[in-house]
C-alpha cells in the first residue's frame, strides 16, 4: 500500500468529511485530492495549470465523483474523463445521492466503472467506502 492517489470530487463539505473519515477508517494511506466543483476537477486534469499536467503528477488510482456539482456537473466531468485517452483508464466511481435510473444509465453509458448511491445511514456509508477501496485499490491491478 504505497502512495496511491485518490481524487474526490464532492461539493458538500460534510460529505467530504465523512468520506475522508471513512477512508481513514478503512486504513488507507494515500495522497488524495479534493475538488469542490466540476470546474476544479476539469482544471486539474485537463488544464496546463492543473496539477496533473504542470507538476507532472502521476495519474490517480481512483476518482470518487459526485454528480451534483456546481459549475461543471459530474456527468460532464465523467464524460471528459472517459473520452480523453490519458484519463479514460482511471477507475471512476460515481458516489451520488441520486437513485435516479436515468442518472445511473447515463453514467454507465459514459463508461463509469461503478455507480453507488450515498446511503443515509452512516454505517452503510463507511461500508461502501471501504468496499470501494477494497475493490478498486487494494485488489485492482492496473493495466500499466
Amino acid at each position: 500500500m504505497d502512495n496511491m492517489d485518490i481524487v474526490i470530487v464532492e461539493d458538500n463539505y460534510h460529505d467530504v468529511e465523512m468520506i475522508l473519515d471513512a477512508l481513514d477508517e478503512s486504513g488507507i494511506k494515500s495522497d488524495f485530492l479534493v475538488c469542490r466543483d466540476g470546474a476544479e476537477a476539469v482544471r486539474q486534469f485537463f488544464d496546463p495549470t492543473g496539477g496533473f499536467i504542470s507538476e507532472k503528477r502521476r495519474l490517480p488510482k481512483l476518482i470518487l465523483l459526485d454528480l451534483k456539482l456546481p459549475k461543471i456537473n459530474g456527468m460532464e466531468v465523467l464524460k471528459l474523463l472517459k473520452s480523453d485517452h490519458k484519463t479514460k483508464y482511471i477507475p471512476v466511481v460515481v458516489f451520488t445521492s441520486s437513485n435516479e435510473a436515468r442518472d445511473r444509465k447515463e453514467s454507465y453509458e459514459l463508461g463509469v466503472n461503478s455507480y453507488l448511491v450515498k446511503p443515509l445511514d452512516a454505517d452503510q456509508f463507511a461500508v461502501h467506502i471501504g468496499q470501494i477501496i477494497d475493490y478498486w485499490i487494494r485488489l485492482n491491478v492496473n493495466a500499466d
Partner: protein
Amino acid sequence: MINPLPRTINKTLLIALAIFISASSAITIFGFYIYQYQKKEIGRAASQQLSAIAELKVWEITTWRNERIGDANVIYQNDSFAENVAEYFNNPLSPELKENVLSLLASTQKSYHYQNILLIDKNKTVRLTMQKYDPDFGFRHADIINQAFDLNDIIVSDIHRDERDKSEHISVVIPISMIKKSRSIPIGTVIILVDPQLRLYPTIKKWPMPSATGEALLVHREGNDVVCLNELRHVKNTPLILRHPITKISLPPVKAVLGFQSAFEGIDYRKKKVFAAVKAVPDTTWFLVAKIDQEEIFASLTMRFWLIVFFILGAISILGILVAYVWRYQQAKYYREQYELEYKRAFMYARSLIEASLDPLVTISTEGKIMDVNKSTEFITGRTRNELIGSDFSSYFTEPEKAERGYKHVFEKGVIRDYPLSIRNISGQATDVLYNAVLYKDENGEVQGIFAAARDVTALRRAEKELKVAHDELELRVEERTDDLKRANNALELEIRERKEVEKLIALRTKLLEVTNKELESFSYSVSHDLRAPLRAIDGYSRMILRDQRDHLNDEAKRKFDLIRTNTQMMGRLIDDLLSFSRLGRLEINMSKLDMEGLVNDVWMELQIINPDRKIDFNIQSIPPGQGDRTLIKQVYSNLLSNAVKYTKSKDKAYIETGGYQERNENIYYVKDNGVGFDMDYYDKLFGVFQRLHSTDEYEGTGVGLAIVQRIIHRHGGRVWAEGQVEEGAVFYFTLPIKDCLTNG
C-alpha cells in the same frame, strides 16, 4: 377477309409449272432432233447426189478417155498404117507415101479437134504434124514414148503443162511397130495432143443441176502435194497450179488422194464447209472430187430450222397460255369460293344481329311498305313476318299520319331521331316508342329505302311520371327539413363555440399541469436530495462522535446519540416514502399481463431476506393472472405483505395467506394475516397519508404504505378495502379490472 391461297393451290401451280417446263423442254428437244434428222437427211441426200454426180463425171471422163483411146486405136491397130509409115520413113520425099500417112492422121484429126497429131520416128524426130510443133517435142516426150514401146500399148499421159506456151495438154502416145517374123519392130510414134480445155474441162465443170457452189475437181498426187488438174469455179488459173500439201486432210482433194471413198464432209480451199464425193478415175491417177458447199445444201435447212423454231415457240406459247389459263381458273375458282363463304358468313352475322336486337327493326321501301322485319317487330305488333312484309308501315301505329310524316321526313332529310310514336299491337295494346331511322342507299347512291329502329319507352315514360311525383314530394320534405336543420345548425354553432372555449381552457390547464408536474418532479427530487444531505451529515457526525469519543461519553449520551441516529434514519425513510408517494400521481402505467403468483413469490423472497429471523407460515392460494403495471403491482404486494409481516410479529404462529378469485368482470386479490388487526371504527383513517392506527414505537412505519397501495390500485381503475378485527388479524382486498385488449409484456 379472304384467305390467301392455300398450299394446295400453290402446289397445283407448281405442278402446272413443272409440267409446262418439262413439256417445253420436250418440245424443244423434239424440235432439235427433228432438225438434226432433217439435216442428216439433207446431208445424206446431198452426199448421194454428189456421189451420183461424181460417178457421172467419172463415167463422162472415162468415156471421153475411151474415145480418145479409141481414136488412137484406129491408128494403132492399122497394120497398113505402120507399113505406110515405114515406107514413108524410107522415102520421105514421096508425096504419095506422105499422103498415105497423112490421110489417116487427118481423118483422126477430123473426128475430134485435136490440138495436134505428130508423127515421130525412132530417133525422136518429129516427121509429120497437123499443126505447128515444137522441134524438141519428140525429145521432151522421150520418156513416155519409150514407156509406150515398152508396154507396146497406147499410153494416155496425165495432164501436163507445156512450158513454152503454158498450155495444158494430154498426150496420147501410140507406138507404131511392125510385126516381122513375129517380132515387133518399132517404127515410130504417133502422139495425139489433146487439149483438155476442149472437152475435158467443160465436162468436169458441167454441173448436172443448177447449183451455186457445186463443182468438180480432178486431182492427182504429185509427191507430197495434191494437184488440181482442172479449172475451178471459184478460183482462176488453177490447173496444175493450185496445190495443197497432203497434210491438209480436211481438204477433199487430199482426202481423195488418200483413198477416201464415197461421200464425206470437209473444208475446201476457200475454208468453207463442203460436202464432197470422190471417185477414182479408173486407169488413171486421177480422182474426181465432186463438192458442194454445205451452205447451199443446208440453205433449205435454214428455212426449215426457223420453221421448227417458230413451231416450237408457238407450241410452247400455247402451252404456256394453257397453263396460265388453267391456273387463273383455279385461282378464280378458289377466290370465288372464299368470297361466297365470306359473304355467307357476313350475311349470317348481320342477320343474327338484326334478329337478336330487342328493338323492333324494320326496313321501309320508298312507297312506305315494309320490306323486312326482325322478331322484335313481330312481337311488338303481334303479327307474323309474312303479314308484315309488303304492308303499309304506318298502319301499325295509333297515329298513322304521324308515322307517315315521320318516314317521309327521312326520305327528305335522310335521318330522324327519337321520333315519338305508339305502336298498336293486334291485341289492342299500344306501346310507346321512339323511332330512329336513316336512309340507306345502294353502291350507286340510289335510295333503296329506310332502316328504322324503335326503342320501347313505356318503362321510361312510367319512370318519368313516378319521378315527378317523387320529386314534388321530396321538395316538400326538403323545405321542412331545411328549416329544422337551420335551427339545429344555429344551436350547434353555439355549442361548438362554447366547446372551443372549454377546449382552450383545458389545453391551458393541461399545459399548466404539465409544467406543474415537471416542477413538482424536479422539486421533489432536489428536495429529497437536499433533505438527505444534512440528515446524512447528522448521522455521520453522530456516528463519528460515538466511535471516536466512546470512552468520553456516558451511557445517557450514547443513548441520546443513538436516538439522534435512529431519528435521522426514520426521517430518511419518510422522505423516500413521500417522494415515491408524490411520484405515483405522475407515473405512467405500463399495462401487461401479470403472473400474480410469480410476483407474490418474488416479493416474499425479498421479505424473507430482509427478515431472516421471522418464521412465518406463508400460504399462496391460487391467484388468477391480472392486468397491470408490474412494478406498481409488485409494490402493492410488497407493501401489503411487509405490513402483514410487521403486524404479525407479536404472534407466535404468524400466518399469512394470499390468493385471488374472479368475480363478474374483475379479479379480487387478498392478503390475509392473523396479526394485530385494526379497529374497524377507524376504517376511514386506514388508507390516509400519514394516518397511523398504531404508534410508532409499537410498529415502525411512516403510514404511507397503504396510501401508496390505494393510489396505485385506483390508478389501475380498481378498488381497495379491508376488514379487520383487533388482535384477530386483517384482510386487505384489491381488485384489478379485466380488459379485453392486452399488450404482451
